[in-house]
């Protein structure tokens, strides 16, 4: 006892404790300072893109009450946690007081904060994190899961449908019609028939049939002169298969024939409605595809939810949000509350760039990005998975092959660290000049970006393949399967979610890359969407780069901010998709 008191009295422990505490907080500060700096910049860019600096407190309050508060209520109801409710109310209320006082104090004592008011600060500092937190808590429970699932299906389906429709701005719709009719459709038919009859040999014929059909389509493209109208092509090649797939999916869940047929019919009718609607921004008739892609997953999901009867009240979420938005708009209109004029509005994503800030839009750049990313996705997925399968499944660890493998492995690690601008030089020298694919064409850009993200896709695919348990391989070999059969039937299906996650994350990197595009001569600004893959095009980051050169304030603080937010939203949704796929996989195993 005496000894212990001695050390306590000497003050020796005190000194080192202070040092330790100081160090602890210093290192904590270091870990959040970068995040906070980025968060502050993001707040500013969002404020600029949505013109929130000019949002009156009444406007913010109206939408907070009609839209945000019901949403928080829904999440809390789903979470069903009294303690969480208390904490949320405390955070929202205390945060209101805290933000207002802190904000006014800074304005008074230090200096005015430009382009921010305390309600906007409250929105970002308190409301957004609280909403994120309750959303996370609510999504864990059936009600919330149902609600967000129901919201996610149409949004995801519409986005995917729109992206696919955009591809037909560049790719030949009639060729696609022939490829589908002569190759994909018969091959799918044979495969399905073989699967039903248990005739493996017949199903194996599907690949040669498909190849023959695709080759025939390429030959016949210029021979055949008359084609169906484009809405019909979209309905036949996308509307019917999507409706059929939805019906099959419902049927495979053990539902009755009638309900499966109902889901299929609903999807078909929705697709049919698309023939009557037109859209200026998308190819003629592609609304068929967008509507089918929106309605089919929604109908399937609705059917499953109603069937399982779990979290049914979650289905009210879209009504809640839609009603909230309408009510907010009605109140704003009725009382004449001045509303902000956001730069990021529907016109921004559907119009071409312009010298005039108000009319400027991102549409051609979005189309360019979508096309590049589609080709990059295909190329880097095939190459990345192929290389990863070789490195993980086919190669040996010893001997000459082992040596070569090690070299390839080191090489991939080094390629991942080569600056992107050097890849741009590779694209310029090799694809644009030597092979003559043209400056700034979608082909050159896609090839360059595919090589750029190839190391990342290979490394992530390798990790996914490596995480497949070895027992599965041994079991497959034990049953007499060859290496390819084991890879195709056991390893790849098991590793697919991991591979997809890695590929999507890598594509996120590709969509934001600018330097290689500049080096290969991509246009900074094009005023119409490209007509084919050999024409010069722009991409979202290129357009942002071009606009950031404009000295006018409307561009600096308006148009570019809207472009940046669009790019960030695209990136965020890609990463969210990757995370959702990963979580599903983790839950599955």
């Amino acid at each position, binding site marked *: 006892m005496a000894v212990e008191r001695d050390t306590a009295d000497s003050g020796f422990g005190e000194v080192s404790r202070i040092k330790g505490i100081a160090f602890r907080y210093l290192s904590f500060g270091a*870990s959040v300072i970068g995040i906070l700096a980025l968060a502050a910049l993001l707040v500013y860019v969002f404020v600029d893109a949505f013109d929130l600096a000019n949002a009156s407190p009444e406007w913010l309050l109206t939408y907070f009450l009609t839209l945000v508060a019901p949403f928080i209520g829904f999440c809390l109801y789903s979470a069903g946690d009294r303690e969480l409710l208390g904490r949320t109310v405390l955070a929202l209320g205390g945060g209101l007081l805290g933000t207002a006082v802190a904000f006014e104090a800074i304005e008074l004592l230090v200096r005015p904060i430009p382009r921010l008011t305390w309600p906007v600060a409250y929105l970002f500092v308190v409301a957004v994190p609280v909403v994120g937190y309750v959303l996370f808590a609510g999504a864990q429970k059936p009600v919330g899961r149902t609600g967000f699932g129901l919201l996610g299906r149409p949004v995801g389906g519409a986005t995917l449908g729109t992206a696919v429709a955009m591809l037909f701005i560049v790719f030949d719709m009639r060729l696609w019609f022939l490829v589908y009719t002569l190759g994909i459709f018969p091959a799918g038919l044979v495969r399905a028939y073989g699967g039903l009859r248990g005739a493996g040999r017949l199903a194996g014929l599907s690949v040669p049939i498909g190849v023959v059909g695709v080759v025939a389509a390429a030959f016949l493209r210029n021979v055949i002169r008359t084609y169906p109208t484009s809405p019909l092509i979209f309905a036949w090649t996308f509307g019917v298969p999507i409706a059929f797939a939805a019906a099959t999916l419902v049927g495979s869940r053990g539902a009755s024939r009638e309900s499966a047929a109902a889901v299929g019919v609903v999807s078909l009718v929705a697709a049919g409605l698309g023939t009557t609607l037109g859209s200026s921004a998308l190819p003629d008739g592609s609304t068929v595809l967008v509507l089918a892609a929106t309605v089919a997953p929604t109908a399937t999901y609705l059917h499953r939810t109603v069937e399982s009867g779990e979290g049914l009240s979650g289905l009210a979420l879209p009504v809640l949000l839609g009603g909230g938005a309408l009510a907010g708009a009605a109140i704003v209109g009725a009382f004449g509350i001045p509303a902000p004029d956001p730069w990021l509005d529907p016109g921004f994503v559907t119009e071409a760039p312009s010298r005039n800030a108000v009319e400027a839009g991102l549409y051609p750049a979005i189309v360019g990005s979508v096309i590049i990313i589609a080709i990059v996705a295909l190329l880097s997925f095939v190459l990345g*998975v*192929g*290389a990863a399968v070789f490195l993980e499944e086919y190669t040996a660890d010893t001997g000459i092959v082992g040596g070569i493998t090690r070299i390839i492995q080191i090489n991939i690690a080094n390629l991942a660290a080569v600056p992107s601008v050097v890849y741009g030089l590779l694209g310029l020298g090799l694809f644009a000049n030597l092979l003559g694919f043209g400056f700034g064409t979608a082909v050159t850009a896609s090839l360059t970006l595919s090589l750029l993200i190839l190391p990342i896709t290979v490394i992530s695919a390798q990790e996914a393949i490596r995480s497949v348990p070895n027992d599965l391989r041994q079991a497959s070999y034990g049953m007499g399967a060859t290496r390819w059969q084991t890879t195709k039937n056991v390893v790849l299906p098991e590793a697919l979610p991991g591979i997809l996650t890695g590929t999507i994350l890598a594509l996120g990197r590709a969509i934001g890359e600018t330097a290689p595009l500049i080096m290969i001569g991509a246009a900074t600004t094009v005023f119409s969407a490209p007509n084919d893959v050999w024409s010069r095009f722009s991409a979202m*980051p290129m357009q942002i780069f071009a606009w950031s050169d404009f000295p006018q304030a409307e561009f600096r603080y308006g148009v570019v901010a809207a472009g940046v937010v669009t790019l960030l939203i695209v990136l965020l949704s890609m990463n969210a998709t990757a995370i959702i796929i990963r979580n599903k996989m983790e839950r599955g195993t």
Partner: protein
Amino acid sequence: MSSGTEAPDLQRSSGIERIKETGYGGVFVACAAVTLLTTIAIFVTLLSDAFAFFMQVPATEFLFSTEWSPNPLGGGQVFGIVPLVIGTLTVTITAALIAIPIGTLTAIYLSEYATSRLRSILKPMLEVLAGIPTVVYGYFALVYVTPALQATLFPQMSTFNALSASLMVGIMTIPMVSSISEDAMSAVPDSLRQAGYGLGATKYEVSTGIVVPASLSGIASSYILAISRAIGETMIVVVAMGAQANMPDVQRAILGIPYIHPGDVLFDPGMTITVSMVQIAGSDLTGGTVPYDAMFALGLALFVVTLIMNVLSDLIAERYREEY
């Protein structure tokens, strides 16, 4: 049990199956070969045009001339890499001064202090820092950071300057330092920490006196990788730093020791190697001209430097790794 499943399937070893097997193997080898071919293609592309460049411009001028003017305006074309190197060094050093201390402290906090729950929140958020497109960082630097710095700390700063670009490069490279360093620190066995506590050390002493020295090789290799990333960074500096290849005034301190005042390089526009490449690409792409070839010479310099740094980082991590 039908008899069909019990009979061994001898079809598998038939000729067609074997051909199929070899064929697919060949496809995978080809995919893996693409990665090797990429490296070879980079080397060949860069070397061939860089060779053409050095046929026309002497290497001594490239390495030692203090003027960079690829587009002749009045005078002749001069290709001296020195001002570009100074610009690149300015950005790299400033960014390293931000990323290295912050990244190291972050790694220590994540590996030694943070609860696993906090770590699972902080780590993805830090990864976001590296995931934001660099052109967006450049826009932030130009439109938000520079005006903020002008209004508060440095009124003499020009619209395009090296400082705000470097700040953003620094923030972007924080996760590179922190994640690799943290991996190295987490690999330090717990027995070492327990031994430290047993000797009466505090958590601070264990962290800085045991964990950091034990993982020094990993930390050093993370620094080198981050610096290599900062050297190759393009869009942030293109957007925010302007494009003037300036030579800063060399001033004389007491005893005539030459030095460069940081304000001269940080507050003014500058040009890095990457910026000059982008600038040439914006004007001249058809090939065959000297500036076009100069672009590849610069690319070669960049490629070689980053390659050496990556290999060095690997070597350090391998050679000096403490084996437990």
